[in-house]
C-alpha cells in the first residue's frame, strides 16, 4: 500500500503544533499553580472543594463527617489565576484535537492503524494520558496541577518527534494482524493512563512529606490538594488501567502464540511487562495491607510507572528481542 506523503506531512505539522500548544497550556497552568497570592487562593479553593468531596465519599474512618453540603450553585469569584487555568484547559483541549488529528492523518497516510513504530506509539500513549487527565481534572479539583502531567507528555512527545521519528511506512509481516490493533491499543491505553497515577503518586509523596514536616516543601506543599485526594486519584486511575493492561498482556500472549509459536517466551518485552504487572498487583495489595497504605503504596505506584517507561525505551532501543518496531534506527 503506497504512503500518502501529503497526509503524512500534515500529520507531522499537526503533531508539532500540538506539542507547542501543550507547552503554552503548561505555562498557563504553572502561572495558575504558582503565582503568588492568587495561586494560594486557587489552592485554598481546591482544598475547600476537596473537603466537600471527602464529605461526599469518604471511607468510614473519617468518622465525624459533616452532613453533606448542598451545592449553593454559586460560582466562586473568578480571579485572574482562575481565568488562566480555564484558558489552560481550553488550550489543552485544542492540543488534544491537534494531537488526535496527527494520529488520524498518520493512519490515513499509511492505510493502517497508526501505532506501528515507537514514534507513533508514543504519540498515542501521550494522547491517552492527556485525555485521561482532562477526565480526572473534571472529577477532582486538580486542574492547577495540569502542568505536572503535561510536562512528561511534552518531554515524551519531543523525544518521540525528534530522536525516534520514523517516516510513514507499512509495517513488517509479523505486525500485520488484527492483534496489532487490539494488543497495542490496550498496551498504549494502559500505559497512557498509568502516567497519571504516576504523577499523582509523586505529588502525593511531596504533600505527605509536607504534612509530616511543614518545613519541607514549605512553599510548594500547601498548594497541592490534600494527600487523600491525590491518593484517590492514583487509585482510581490505576484500577482502571490495570485490567486494561492485563487484557493487553493476554492479547499479546494470544498473538505471540500465532506469530512466534509460543504464547510466552520471556522475551525482554514480555518479561518487563510481567514485572510491571506484578508491581501494580503489589500496589493494589499494598492498599489492603496495614502499614503499607499511603506513602509506600505511592512509591510502589511510581516504581510501576518507571518500569513501564523502562519497557518503552530501554527494552525497545537497547535489548534485542522479537518485539521489533519497524523504523527505529
Amino acid at each position: 500500500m503506497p504512503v500518502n506523503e501529503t497526509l503524512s506531512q500534515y500529520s507531522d505539522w499537526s503533531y508539532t503544533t500540538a506539542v507547542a500548544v501543550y507547552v503554552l497550556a503548561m505555562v498557563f497552568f504553572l502561572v495558575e499553580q504558582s503565582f503568588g497570592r492568587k495561586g494560594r487562593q486557587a489552592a485554598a479553593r481546591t482544598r475547600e472543594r476537596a473537603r466537600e468531596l471527602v464529605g461526599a465519599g469518604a471511607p468510614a474512618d473519617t468518622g465525624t463527617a459533616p452532613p453533606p453540603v448542598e451545592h449553593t450553585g454559586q460560582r466562586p469569584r473568578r480571579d485572574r489565576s482562575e481565568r488562566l487555568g480555564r484558558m489552560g484547559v481550553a488550550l489543552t483541549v485544542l492540543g488534544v484535537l491537534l494531537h488526535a488529528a496527527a494520529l488520524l492523518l498518520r493512519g490515513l497516510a499509511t492505510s493502517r492503524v497508526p501505532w506501528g513504530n515507537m514514534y507513533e506509539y508514543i504519540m498515542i500513549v501521550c494522547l491517552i494520558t492527556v485525555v485521561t487527565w482532562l477526565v480526572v481534572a473534571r472529577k477532582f479539583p486538580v486542574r492547577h496541577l495540569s502542568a505536572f502531567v503535561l510536562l512528561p507528555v511534552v518531554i515524551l512527545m519531543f523525544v518521540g518527534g525528534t530522536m525516534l521519528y520514523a517516516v510513514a511506512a507499512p509495517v513488517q509481516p509479523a505486525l500485520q494482524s488484527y492483534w496489532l490493533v487490539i494488543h497495542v491499543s490496550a498496551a498504549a491505553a494502559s500505559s497512557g493512563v498509568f502516567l497519571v497515577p504516576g504523577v499523582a503518586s509523586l505529588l502525593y509523596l511531596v504533600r505527605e512529606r509536607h504534612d509530616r514536616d511543614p518545613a519541607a516543601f514549605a512553599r510548594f506543599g500547601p498548594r497541592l490538594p490534600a494527600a487523600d485526594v491525590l491518593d484517590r486519584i492514583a487509585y482510581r486511575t490505576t484500577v482502571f488501567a490495570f485490567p486494561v493492561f492485563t487484557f493487553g498482556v493476554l492479547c499479546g500472549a494470544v498473538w505471540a502464540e500465532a506469530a512466534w509459536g509460543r504464547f510466552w517466551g520471556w522475551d525482554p518485552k514480555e518479561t518487563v511487562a510481567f514485572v510491571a504487572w506484578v508491581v501494580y498487583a503489589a500496589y493494589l495489595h499494598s492498599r489492603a495491607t496495614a502499614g503499607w497504605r499511603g506513602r509506600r503504596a505511592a512509591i510502589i505506584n511510581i516504581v510501576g510507572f518507571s518500569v513501564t517507561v523502562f519497557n518503552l525505551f530501554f527494552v525497545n532501543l537497547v535489548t534485542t528481542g522479537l518485539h521489533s518496531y519497524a523504523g527505529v534506527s
Partner: protein
Amino acid sequence: MITREKQRQPYRATPARRALGFVRNTWRGLTSMRTALILLFLLALAAMPGALLPQRNLNAPKTAEYIAEYGWWGRLLDRLQFFDVYSSVWFSAIYLLLMVSLVGCLLPRSLDYVRSMRARPVLTPRNLARMPHYRRAELPGGADDVLATAKSRLRGWRTSERTEAEGTRTISAERGYLRETGNLVFHFGMLGLIVAFALGKMFSYEGQVIVHADGSQFCNSGIFAYDSFNPGLRVDGTGLNPFCVKVDSFEAEYTDVGQPVSYEADLGYQSGEDLESGTWRPYHLEVNEPLRTAGDRVYLLGHGFAPTFTVTFPDGSVRTQSVQWRPVDQQTLLSEGATKFDPPGVTDTAQRRERQLAITGLFAPTAALQGKVLTSVDPRLTNPAVAVDVLRGDLNSDRSQSIFEVDRSMVDSGRLERVARENLDVGETITLDDGTTVRFDGVRNWVSLQVSHDPTQGWVLGFAVAMLLGLAASLLIKRRRLWIRVAPAAESDGERHTVVEVGGLARTDQAGYGEEFTRIAGDLLSRDRKAR
C-alpha cells in the same frame, strides 16, 4: 463450654505445643498479606535479570559470548543461574512460596466467602448519623409505606428487614457481592494458570526444520527429522504426534524499498487417517497463520535460498545438488553456505578423501558487484549470482559439522585446498585444473518451519480469561451498604409522619459511592415519592 474451661487452665508449653505453635506461626506468616506483598516484590525483582542479561534458552551463542567477555563475573553469574533465570532455583523458590501463600490465603477466604454469601446483611448501626453518608427527613405517611417504597427502590440489593427493640424498623441492604467473587475467581484463576503453565513446560516441545519449497516433505516422526529440537523435561522424543507436511511453493512480497510485506507458502499436510490413505490436504501457510494439526502447530519462521550446482567430473559423471544456504543479512538476504560433493565411483576411503569438493561462498538474490566483491541489494530474486571458492581435498565429513560451513581446520592444515575462486551468474561454469566443471544452474527457495507442541496452552488461556474477568469484577464493582431506619414522628397536625434516616458505607475505599447514595437517598426521601 469445654473450650472455656480449657482456657482457664494454665498454659503449659510442651515441646509438641511449641512445635505446633511454630508451624502455625510460620503458616500464618507465610499466608499474611504482607508476606504476599514482599513475595510479589521479590518475584518482580527476580524476573528482571532475564530482560537485562542474555538468556541461554533464547540465545545460547550470545550467552556464551557474554560469559566469555565478562570473565570471572560472567562465570559467577552463570554459576548463580543468571542466564537461566526462569528455571533457576531462586526464581522457582519465590514462585513456589508465592503459590503456598496464595493457597493459604485462598482457603480461609473461600470459607469466609461461602459464609458471607449465606449471611443476611448486617444489623443497622445504632447511630446512622455517624456513617460517612447520611440523610434524614420527615415524610408524610406511615412506616409501612416508607418501607415498601424502599424495598422496591432497592431491587438488586440484598435486603433484610428487622424490627428493633424500641419498635423502630430498619432495612439493611448490601450490594456488590460480585466483587469478592471476582477476587476469588481471579486468584484461583492465577493458581490454575501457574500450574497449567508449569505442566506445559514439562510436556511441550519445539523443533525447527528447513524444508525446500519444491514439494519436499517433512514428517514429525522423531527428533532426527529436525535440525534443532527443544524438548520439555518430560519429552524424550518418542511418541511425537504423527503428521507430515509437504512444501509446494513459497512466495515473498516486498515493497519497492525491499521491506517485506508478506511471506506465504503453499503446503500439503496429512495427519490421522490421511496418513494411511495418503491424502494431502492443502494449507496456505502465512506469518500469523500457523497450521494446526494433530495437536501441534506448524509455523513459517523464515526463508532463504538454495543455489543449485551441477558438477561434471572428468569421468563424465554428473552430480546436481541444491543445499540451503543461510541468510547473513536479513535485509538483502545475502546468503552463505557450503555445497559438498563426493567424487562418484570412488570406493577407497583414502582416495575419496583427497578428491571431495566443496563450493562455498556467498549467494546474492539481486547481485551487485563492488569491485570484485559480491553484495546483494535486494531480497528479491531478480539477478541471482554467487561468489564461490571451490575447495578440493578432505572435508572431514565423518565428523558432524554444520551444513553451512566446511571444517576450517582442514583448510588450515592444508588438507582442503582452494582450487578456484569465481563470481558466477546463472548458467556460468568454472572449469577446474583436472577438467571437472562446476555450473551454477539456478536457485530454489527454502522455508524454515517450526513445529510447536504444548498440550496445556488451552488451559492457560482459559485460566487467563477467568483471571481477567475476575479482575475486572473485583476492581470495578463496589461493595456497599445502605441502611434505612424509620420511626414514627410526633404527631403534630393529626397526620401521620415518619422520620426516615438513610446511612451508607462503601466497604472498599473507592470513591464514587457518594453519587449513588445521593441518588438513592434522594429517591427515598423525596416527598412526592415518585420512586414508587
